[in-house]
C-alpha cells in the first residue's frame, strides 16, 4: 500500500451550524433540516470564496436516516446548496462521517478526478420528523435515539444480547484504566470532573456549542458552592456505568458541518487561508473493540500509524489534538495511544489544566462531544472546523496562544471505525 496522496490537497473552506435542538435552541429553533444544512454549506462555500456551482462533486453524509428522513441527500439538498448537476453520493461512516468524507475527497482530488469537492454532514439526534410533516419536528426519546444509533452496532450478537454503549465505551474502559495504572476510583472520579470542567469551559467560550455553561456555574445554579459536590451528586450526575458518570458522556444534538477540499495550487490567493490535509488513516473493527486491555484499541493504533505515515509526522509534532470523546475516558486513552499524553497521566494532565486552550497540551477546544454536542454524522466536521479556526488564529477567546501548525483529529464512527486526519499549516 503506497499510503500517499499524489497531489497536495487542502481544506479551503469550513462551515458549521450551532449544535443544539431544532425545537428549542436559539439560532436553531424552527429551522428545517434542509435550512440547517444549507447554513453550514453556505458558510464553507463563502469561506472558500466559491458557490455550489464551482465544485465538481458533493459527498453528502448522514448516518441516522430514521430521524432525518433525507436519504438521497445529495439530491434532496441540491437546490438548497446550489449544487445541482454535480457528481454526488450519500455516504456514512457514523460519527466519523465528515472526516471519512474529507479523506475520500482528498483521494479523489489527489487522483486527479476532481479539482474541488464539497463534503457536508447533517444529523438530528434530538428531533425527528413529526408524522408526515415537511417542516414540523418532535423530540426523540432516549430509548429511540439509542435503538436507532445502535443499529450501527453488531445486530447479530451484540445488541440482542445486552450490549450497552455506556458499559462498553465508559465503565469497562474506566476500570481497565484504573487497574492498569493503579489509580483509585476516587482519583479517577476527580480526574473526570476536571476533564469535564475543561470541556465545559471550552463550550462556554464557543457560541456554536450545545452547552455554553461552565460546570461551576451549573453547580451554583443548582445550589452547590463546591462544584465537585455537584459532580458527586447522584441526583445531578448519576453513575451510568460505574465508575463513569453522566457528565463524562456525549450530549446529543442536531447539527450540520461542511468543508471544501481542493488542490493546493487552486487555493492559492483564495478568500481564506487554506490548511493542508496532510494525511489520514482509517481502520475498522467489530465488537469487542479491545482485547484484555480496555485502554488499547488496535484499530485506532492502525489508523494513527497510517495517518502519521502518510503525513510524515510524529506525535511530538502535534500542536493541537482532538480525540473522539463520546466517552471522556476513551478519549484520554486514545490521546495516550497517539503519544500526545503520557500513558497513565492523561487525567493528571486534566487536573493540572494542561488540556485547556491555554495549557501546553490543548485538546478539544470547541468543547468536545459533551459541551459542543454530538450530531453523529456532522460532528467530525466540527472537529475539523475547530482545528482550522485554531490554525488560522480565528478561534477568538479560546485561541491557542501559539497557532497550531500540526493538528490531529481522531474520531470514532460507530461501531467502530477509527479515523485520524492530520492537518498542517501552509
Amino acid at each position, binding site marked *: 500500500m503506497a499510503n500517499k496522496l499524489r497531489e497536495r490537497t487542502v481544506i479551503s473552506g469550513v462551515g458549521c451550524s450551532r449544535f443544539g435542538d431544532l425545537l428549542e435552541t436559539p439560532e436553531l429553533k424552527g429551522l428545517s433540516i434542509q435550512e440547517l444544512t444549507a447554513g453550514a454549506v453556505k458558510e464553507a462555500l463563502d469561506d472558500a470564496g466559491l458557490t455550489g456551482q464551482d465544485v465538481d462533486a458533493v459527498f453528502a453524509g448522514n448516518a441516522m436516516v430514521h430521524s432525518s428522513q433525507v436519504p438521497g441527500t445529495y439530491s434532496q439538498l441540491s437546490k438548497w446548496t446550489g449544487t445541482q448537476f454535480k457528481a454526488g453520493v450519500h455516504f456514512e461512516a457514523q460519527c466519523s462521517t465528515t472526516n471519512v468524507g474529507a479523506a475520500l475527497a482528498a483521494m479523489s482530488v489527489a487522483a486527479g478526478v476532481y479539482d474541488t469537492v464539497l463534503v457536508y454532514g447533517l444529523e438530528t439526534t434530538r428531533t425527528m420528523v413529526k408524522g408526515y410533516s415537511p417542516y414540523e419536528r418532535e423530540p426523540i426519546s432516549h430509548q429511540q435515539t439509542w*435503538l436507532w444509533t445502535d443499529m450501527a452496532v453488531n445486530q447479530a*450478537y451484540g445488541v440482542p*444480547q445486552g450490549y450497552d454503549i455506556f458499559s462498553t465505551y465508559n465503565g469497562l474502559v474506566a476500570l481497565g484504566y484504573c487497574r492498569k495504572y493503579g489509580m483509585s476510583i476516587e482519583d479517577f472520579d476527580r480526574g473526570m470532573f476536571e476533564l469535564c470542567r475543561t470541556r465545559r469551559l471550552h463550550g462556554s467560550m464557543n457560541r456554536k456549542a450545545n452547552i455554553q455553561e461552565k460546570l461551576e456555574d451549573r453547580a451554583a445554579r443548582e445550589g452547590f458552592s463546591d462544584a465537585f459536590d455537584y459532580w458527586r451528586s447522584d441526583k445531578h450526575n448519576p453513575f*451510568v456505568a*460505574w465508575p463513569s458518570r453522566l457528565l463524562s458522556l456525549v450530549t446529543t444534538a442536531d447539527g450540520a458541518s461542511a468543508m471544501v477540499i481542493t488542490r493546493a495550487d487552486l487555493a492559492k490567493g483564495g478568500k481564506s487561508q487554506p490548511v493542508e490535509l496532510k494525511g489520514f488513516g482509517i481502520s475498522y473493527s467489530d465488537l469487542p473493540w479491545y482485547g484484555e486491555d480496555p485502554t488499547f484499541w488496535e484499530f485506532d493504533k492502525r489508523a494513527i500509524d497510517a495517518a502519521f505515515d502518510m503525513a510524515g509526522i510524529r506525535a511530538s509534532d502535534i500542536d493541537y489534538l482532538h480525540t473522539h470523546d463520546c466517552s471522556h475516558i476513551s478519549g484520554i486513552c486514545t490521546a495516550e495511544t497517539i503519544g500526545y499524553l503520557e500513558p497513565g497521566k492523561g487525567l493528571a494532565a486534566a487536573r493540572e489544566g494542561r488540556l485547556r486552550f491555554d495549557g501546553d497540551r490543548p485538546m478539544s477546544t470547541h468543547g468536545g462531544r459533551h459541551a459542543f454536542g454530538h450530531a453523529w454524522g456532522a460532528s467530525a466536521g466540527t472537529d475539523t472546523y475547530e482545528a482550522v479556526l485554531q490554525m488560522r488564529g480565528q478561534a477568538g477567546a479560546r485561541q491557542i496562544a501559539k497557532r497550531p501548525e500540526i493538528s490531529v483529529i481522531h474520531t470514532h464512527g460507530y461501531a467502530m471505525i477509527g479515523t485520524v486526519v492530520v492537518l498542517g499549516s501552509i
Partner: protein
Amino acid sequence: MQTVAEQPSAIRRYYEGLAEGVFRAIRCQACGKHTFPPTGCCEHCGSWKVEPVELSGEGTLLFATHNIFPACHPRFEKIAPYVYGHIRLKEGPIVQAIVLGVQATPADLGRLFERGPVPVTAEALPMDDLPVLAFRIHD
C-alpha cells in the same frame, strides 16, 4: 405447492444452541483460532476454512460495570440495571456479556473490582423472546 428448504443460518443455530446451553463457535483450520459468536469465516486471518465447535463456557471475568437505566433496548427493560462484563474465555476469545451473581451497585461492583479477575461460567438467560448469553460468577 413446492416446499422451499430453509437455508442454514449461523445466527439462528447459535441462539438455538444457546437455548440448550450449547455455546457454538467456529475454529479456523488455517490459524487454529476461534471466532465467537460464530460467523462464516475466521475473524483473525480471514480464512473461509472453518469448522463448527462448541466452547466450554468457562472463562475469567476481567472487569464488570453496569448498563444505563432505563435500558437502551426494550428487551432488557425488565432487568435493568444489569451487570455487564468483559470476559476472557478459556479457549481464548474475549466476549462482553451480562454477568450474574453480583448486584449492579457501586459498592458491590467496587468489591468485585478489588478482588480482581474471577472465574465465571456461561449460561443462557431466558428473556421473553430470545435466550441471552450470560456469565455467572463462581461462589
